[in-house]
């Protein structure tokens, strides 16, 4: 998928060059990605043999359907998989689709299968099934690289574990001899450097409270509050549904159940427009897709959410709009040659500042920051933290989602840990450590959910 700049890969003791997924395939290496790579409208058989169909006539491109079905049946049987070869992949469950991927890897006679977070979408029964298959593959002499942040899975399956952190090798250990606590310690490792200019603000009255937020299959009875002048960190692993929580509060995703209160008043939020009216802002995680309007200028991006304010009878007063954009671009130190520069030409950090400037331009005093410093350089990060400090000093309430524990520890007053759409832990700034948060995020048992009372506001 990506070509390395340096380094060597050896297969069966021989040094090889892999420049393309085809090369890997030819060497007997298959990868099963977190997001499955199947063609949903094709059948199981067609997917397994995609691009390698047995042919009746190669010249005419006529597929030998009987041979295709026959060979598919053999492979499925060897995996003990009860799926008709002509079923369409989109009609299968996620677990079965994953099995189809494994069947495909087997049909390629792969001797090494890389699995990237294969259980992220599976139920526990399906996981047992997958594990049985993996053990069977192991018995047949297939090597497996199993990528996971679920340490219980690593314990259950692994012979050896290699721990990577920030793109570097930390250690390789024998799983049987290494307790989970030790694995966590290796994963965390680094010292907390003082990169976080946390401002000390005395929290005031309640800014945002959410109660029993529930969305079937996604959020399970999520309740929390954040006070003015407070930064609430939302920690958890990828897939803990923290982004979904923020989007639900912001009206970008539907809610089946739950109540949202802003400054103590219940509010109804059915769309981002409603959220903005109730002075909530969401700085989204995916800057490119959800934050910036790449082909529009810095000025137009900054004023997008507050544009009616600079308009009279629907006509924009460019003088006032420009003055406002200039003021915010200057105070946030957006590095741009001029306000008319298209945002796409700015660096990631400056794009993020433009997005934040857009939200500062609204009346918002509840801010949901979703991975606010993802993909921006260290200098810009500190500037973003300073902006958050300014906000809490002015009495804003901030919820900060972050997958970087140092950031969570460095900037939060209080920390909530989520796992599988539930809040599974809460820490005060003073007793939080990376180890404790990570352990909670990895192993945290869901809090038993109380009866759901009260109507959705």
């Amino acid at each position, binding site marked *: 998928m990506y070509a390395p700049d340096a380094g060597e890969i050896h297969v069966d003791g021989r040094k090889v060059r892999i420049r393309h997924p085809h090369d890997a395939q030819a060497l007997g290496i298959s990868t099963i990605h977190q997001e499955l790579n199947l063609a949903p409208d094709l059948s199981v058989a067609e997917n397994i043999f995609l691009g390698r169909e047995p042919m009746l006539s190669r010249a005419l491109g006529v597929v030998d359907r009987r041979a295709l079905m026959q060979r598919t049946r053999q492979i499925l049987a060897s995996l003990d998989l009860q799926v008709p070869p002509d079923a369409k992949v989109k009609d299968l469950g996620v677990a079965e689709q994953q099995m189809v991927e494994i069947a495909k890897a087997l049909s390629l006679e792969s001797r090494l299968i890389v699995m990237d977070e294969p259980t992220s979408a599976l139920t526990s029964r399906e996981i047992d099934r997958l594990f049985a298959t993996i053990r069977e593959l192991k018995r047949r002499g297939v090597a497996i690289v199993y990528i996971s942040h679920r340490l219980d899975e690593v314990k259950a399956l692994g012979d050896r574990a290699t721990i990577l952190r920030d793109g570097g090798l930390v250690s390789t250990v024998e799983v049987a001899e290494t307790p989970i606590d030790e694995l966590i310690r290796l994963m965390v490792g680094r010292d907390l450097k003082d990169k976080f200019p946390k401002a000390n603000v005395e929290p005031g009255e309640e800014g945002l409270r959410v109660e029993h937020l529930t969305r079937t299959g996604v959020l399970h009875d999520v309740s929390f509050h954040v006070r003015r002048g407070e930064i609430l960190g939302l920690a958890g692993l990828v897939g803990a549904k923290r982004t979904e929580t923020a989007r639900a509060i912001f009206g970008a995703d539907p809610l089946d159940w739950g109540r949202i209160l802003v400054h103590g008043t219940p509010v109804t939020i059915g769309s*981002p427009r409603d959220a903005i009216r109730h002075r909530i802002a*969401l700085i989204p995680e995916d800057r490119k897709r959800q934050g*910036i309007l790449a082909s529009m200028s810095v000025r137009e991006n900054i004023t997008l959410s507050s544009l009616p304010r600079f308009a009279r009878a629907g006509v924009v007063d460019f003088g006032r709009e420009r003055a406002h954009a200039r003021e915010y671009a200057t105070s946030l130190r957006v590095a741009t040659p001029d306000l008319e520069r298209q945002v796409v030409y700015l660096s990631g950090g400056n794009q993020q500042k433009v997005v934040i400037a857009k939200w500062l331009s609204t009346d918002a005093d509840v801010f949901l920051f979703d991975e606010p410093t993802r993909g921006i350089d260290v200098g810009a990060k500190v500037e973003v933290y300073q902006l958050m400090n300014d906000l809490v000093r002015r009495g804003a309430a901030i919820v900060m989602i972050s997958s970087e524990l140092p950031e969570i520890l460095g900037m939060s007053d209080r920390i909530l840990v989520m796992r599988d759409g539930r809040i599974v832990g809460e820490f005060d700034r003073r007793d939080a450590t990376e180890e404790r948060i990570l352990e909670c995020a990895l192993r945290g048992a869901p809090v038993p959910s109380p009866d759901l009372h009260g109507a959705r506001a």
Partner: protein
Amino acid sequence: MITAAGVPSTSPRRIRWGQLGMPAVIVLMMVAFGSENPNFWSATNIANVSRQASTLALISIGQTFAILSAGIDLSVGSLLALVSVVCAQEMLRFGVVGGMVAGVLAGGLAGLVNGVLIAKARVPAFIATLGMLVAARGVALTLSGGLPIGGLPRAFLVVGAGYWGPFPIPTVIAAVAFAGAHLVLSRTVFGRYVYAMGSNEEAAVLSGINVVKHKILVYVASGLFAGVAGVVLTSRVVSGQPTLGETQELYSIAAVVIGGGKITGGVGGMGKTLMGVLVLAILSNGLNLIQVSSYVQNIVIGAIIVGAVYIDLARERRR
């Protein structure tokens, strides 16, 4: 109004050479055609060209809104026919003004249907307006029984054939419409939201823009401009015609992209579209005057559509 930089820049104004490309091409074309055939510059010819181009100009305005918002309006050609039939039939009943109003409203109504299908029912714009392309033509043929509707009041003919000073009235209507649409697009909140929807719809929604409402407005506007165009065209052909406007939607799309509008939305403008309309109009007139057959003209125009977009892309890649 032709300056593409409708939005004032904060830095002192520089000459943007990149934006002079299209006007330069148009001037070159005019000089070339003029030297081949002096009639090109005659007042009569210029009046005729601008009168003929007014229909394309009007529907291209609506198309610009649609394409800028990352949509498309394939129905505008058929709407010309629908509007023409409605306009003529109602005119025979309610008089000149009644007929004209009915025609424009018929366009707007069809646009509203497009808009609701696209914004509310989330039918892709290409499909929704493709359906309207077929259906509107069907309605026009049904209402008229497939026959032209004649006997329109003489007073109506001034809309298509009259002059305002030295300028043909259709030309004046198209010019005023372009100026107005340019102001709406570059100066109003609605205009900004059109660009925002086309640039990144998801981000626009998350920024609190009412995308459903503004998308509907885009297609209503496109329908209304097709309505005006249909009324003018009806006057020019002095009858309600259910067969008007075939393939005109494709030329309106061509006008937008030749001018430099991006087919995927977010980039473009009325000034740019006007350039595209002028290129198409001058080209076909000039080729006529130097006696290039209409068959060959199609080849040239086809090549220019692709060529213009290719040059745009190549320039973007070099940046």
